[in-house]
């Protein structure tokens, strides 16, 4: 519990109406897009870096945990205030400060919604490629904190490839400005990269300088359907090997195809075991079309029984709606879903898919396979009903097996969601003791009092057992 004096001080910093402390209000700041919930002691919504500085100074002095969040659309528990304390809601910091057309750069506050930025820059012919599925609601700050990706990252890279500079409020309230409006910069440590993917454990990112690209004028999208999942996963490597780098290469299995088709009333072949969405973009219409045709030939040679090229932009939009709406569409299939984010080398996708199907059989779950197959990032999803006794233990075991399989194949735990609370117990397995201890040293140097997003990213338990079941939900989140 925070003292009334602390609350008053917070009111003084951000204004009374931006301090949320009612019992119902605290519930609204207790969750992300996973099943976890833990209420903060207070939520505050600052409007600018200066206000964040004052909040951090207070938190540092009083040793109060601080969890920063944007839209809290995370899938790993990264923004759940599991230690209570101050929840820093950065949604009000939603100004696009500058779109520098000449240099193709943008300066934005952390709370800018990703799609909003894309819309603004596209008005002047520029392009911000990272496109997480939640782009209509998630924020740039959150994207930086989790190093978010999306379908376009196969060709264009992830958030970290676009961050040129950051303004970060450190644990003690000092303001760190690193990087800048510079395309090249070898002056000292690459500090912006340190904060990207740090999930709010090292500082609070308040402003971001982003690199932009020229907006490609033409896009062409095709879908390929397969009667065998393996044929589709093999096609991924075959396309890359053919010398084409598609803008996106997305994989969906049979259940996903049907869920999407039902959800959006789309006309898709229901018995196809897999579907690939292939997209190419560029400025030369003929060249783009030719590459899509070439990809169509490659996937046909790998066994695709049907390849369709979207004829209109409406058809293409429908396809992307199907892909973006997939998470929610799957949510309708079963009461609960455990969605993963493993990544392997693109060439090992067929093996990984095979292992996933085996794991499903072994533990008696339906495991759905979809994801950004082109870049090796898959979102295998375990469907289950948590009201069945003993089911959570089995889900844990299956999830563990998925993590282990990815690591065995030289892959890693998360491609774009981050670690949060959900995968932290596997960090030593994923990184090894040396890397983890270096990370701990960095954390200690930047956050000596341990107030920044406590209990995240780093392992908290002696064993993996109970790594899901020990996570907080409403009712077991507050002492007493």
């Amino acid at each position: 519990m925070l003292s009334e004096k602390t609350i008053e001080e917070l009111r003084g910093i951000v204004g009374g109406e931006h301090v949320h402390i009612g019992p119902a209000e605290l519930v609204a700041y207790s969750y992300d897009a996973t099943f976890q919930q833990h209420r903060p002691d207070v939520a505050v919504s600052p409007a600018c870096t200066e206000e964040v500085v004052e909040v951090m100074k207070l938190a540092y002095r009083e040793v109060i945990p601080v969890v920063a969040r944007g839209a809290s659309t995370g899938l790993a528990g990264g923004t759940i205030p599991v230690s209570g304390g101050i929840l820093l809601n950065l949604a009000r910091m939603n100004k696009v400060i500058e779109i520098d057309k000449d240099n193709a750069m943008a300066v934005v506050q952390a709370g800018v919604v990703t799609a909003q930025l894309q819309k603004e820059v596209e008005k002047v012919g520029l392009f911000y490629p990272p496109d997480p599925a939640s782009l209509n609601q998630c924020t740039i700050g959150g994207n930086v904190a989790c190093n978010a990706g999306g379908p376009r990252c196969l060709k264009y890279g992830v958030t970290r490839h676009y961050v040129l500079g950051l303004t970060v409020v450190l644990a003690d309230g000092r303001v760190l400005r690193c990087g800048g409006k510079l395309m090249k910069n070898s002056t000292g440590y690459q500090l912006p990269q340190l904060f990207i993917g740090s999930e709010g454990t090292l500082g609070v990112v308040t402003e971001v300088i982003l690199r932009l690209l020229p907006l490609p004028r033409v896009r062409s999208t095709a879908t390929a359907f397969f009667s065998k999942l393996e044929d589709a996963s093999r096609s991924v490597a075959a396309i890359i090997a053919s010398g084409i780098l598609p803008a996106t290469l997305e994989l969906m299995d049979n259940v996903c195809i049907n869920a999407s088709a039902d959800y959006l009333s789309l006309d898709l072949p229901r018995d196809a075991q897999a579907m690939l969405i292939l997209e190419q973009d560029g400025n030369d219409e003929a060249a783009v079309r030719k590459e899509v045709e070439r990809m169509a030939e490659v996937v046909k040679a790998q066994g695709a029984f049907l390849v369709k090229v979207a004829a209109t932009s409406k058809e293409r939009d429908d396809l992307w709606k199907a892909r973006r709406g997939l998470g929610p569409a799957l949510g309708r299939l079963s009461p609960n879903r455990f969605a993963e984010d493993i990544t392997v080398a693109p060439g090992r996708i067929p093996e990984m898919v095979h292992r996933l199907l085996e794991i499903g059989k072994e533990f008696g779950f339906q495991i759905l396979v979809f994801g950004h197959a082109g870049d090796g990032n898959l979102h295998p999803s375990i469907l289950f009903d948590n009201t069945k006794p003993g089911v959570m233990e089995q889900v844990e075991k299956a999830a563990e097996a998925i993590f282990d399989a990815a690591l065995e194949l030289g892959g890693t735990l998360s491609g774009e969601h981050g670690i949060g609370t959900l995968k932290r117990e596997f960090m030593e397995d994923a990184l090894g003791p040396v890397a983890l201890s270096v990370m701990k040293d960095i954390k200690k140097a930047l956050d000596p009092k341990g107030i920044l997003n406590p209990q995240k990213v780093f392992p908290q338990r002696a064993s993996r057992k109970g790594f899901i079941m020990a996570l907080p939900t409403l009712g077991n989140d507050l002492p007493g």
Partner: protein
Amino acid sequence: MIRKFLSVEDDNLQSCIRCGLCLSVCPTYKETLAEEESPRGRIAIAKAFLEGYLEVTPDLVKHEYSCLLCEACTAICPAGVQMERLEVALRADVNGKRPQPFGERLSRAILYDRLLMDMSLFRFASGFIRVYQRSGLRRFARATGLLRAFGLHKLEGLLPPMRGSFVVPKGQRWLPRSGSPEYRVGLFTGCVMSTVYSSTTLATARVLAANGCEVIAVSGQGCCGSLHFHAADFEGARKLARRNIDAFLEQRVDFIILNSAGCGTLLKHYGELLGDDPDYKEEAAAFARKIKDVTEFLDGLNMNKELGGMNAIVTYQEPCHLSHTQGIRQAPRNLLRSIPGLKLVEMEESDVCCGSAGVYSITNPDMSRRLAMRKIRNALATGADTIASANPGCMLQLYAAVQETGAKLQIKHVVDLLDESYRVARPKEEVDICLAKKQ
């Protein structure tokens, strides 16, 4: 049971997957950027309340009751959460356990329980306001600060001037000028649309007649009951629904047409509203199937193309209860585009609630006003001279906002513009053939 109504919505609540997509469309979230003012926040709060982790606290009441019930979130929700049902159920459980603000008590006692229950009383009260507006009384009241003294000055400014006589439905008929009618349609006249906007309702009848309809203003009909329903006065809503069903039952009309999106949504759901009533269940469902918004109906016809040229730049404000709840987005736009000389320019956020939302402008004046100003800003940015809409709530709200800001914008119903266009095409002839046949 303490959470009697909300517990019925348990599955509905549980289907939220917290993806947060609703944040991108929620008007109150857009304004506040506070999670408790978002659909996802309200659902989480309702769930915690249902599960016993929250009691009725002032902050719970504040954030749940600031929901406009605009259904923008429901329309976009990938997981299928039905926000209006959820919110109305929550309010049904909470209503008795919280202090009711004055504005709400007033609207309940006067509007819901009296005026809307009896259209002759409603007309009487509206007539009083009309006299007040036309006589020097208004100027007197404003000048002396009398309204301010009673705290009514804001309320009074919301009302547009009432022109022309009220439409009292008593079986009047409108017929096509030539040929036999293709459809026999009942005109649902409603409350505000038959008084404040009676000219629009007459225009609706004329436009329908010009498009091959025999139009009947069926007697015995009254308020649709949606204000009651949204205030969780389910019995009030059912009572009004039965009366409307009775009124139209004998008329054997092909369709029941209305020009009020808000009413239309509830009328289309009478089947569910009276689903537990063995005497009315089937009639209610049959009644609901006949309901068509006038824009939806006209857009589905091979329309009379004798439209005269106009000179107007129009932007379209989407009523939530047309776009989000009835899924009618293109029909009004198609109608507007069909008018020669009318230039339709799209505003940003055309489907973000204007803040009218039933009695929301009375119960939540601050948020209501913020949303109205947002709408006016977006409309002005298009360079339009007219905002067209299709719902009395939106029109009242936008009128008040225009009065307040002095913005040079006319507020019209889509059908008003169509009617004007037909009149331009046939300036000398009498389009309005009212046979006023009493039944």
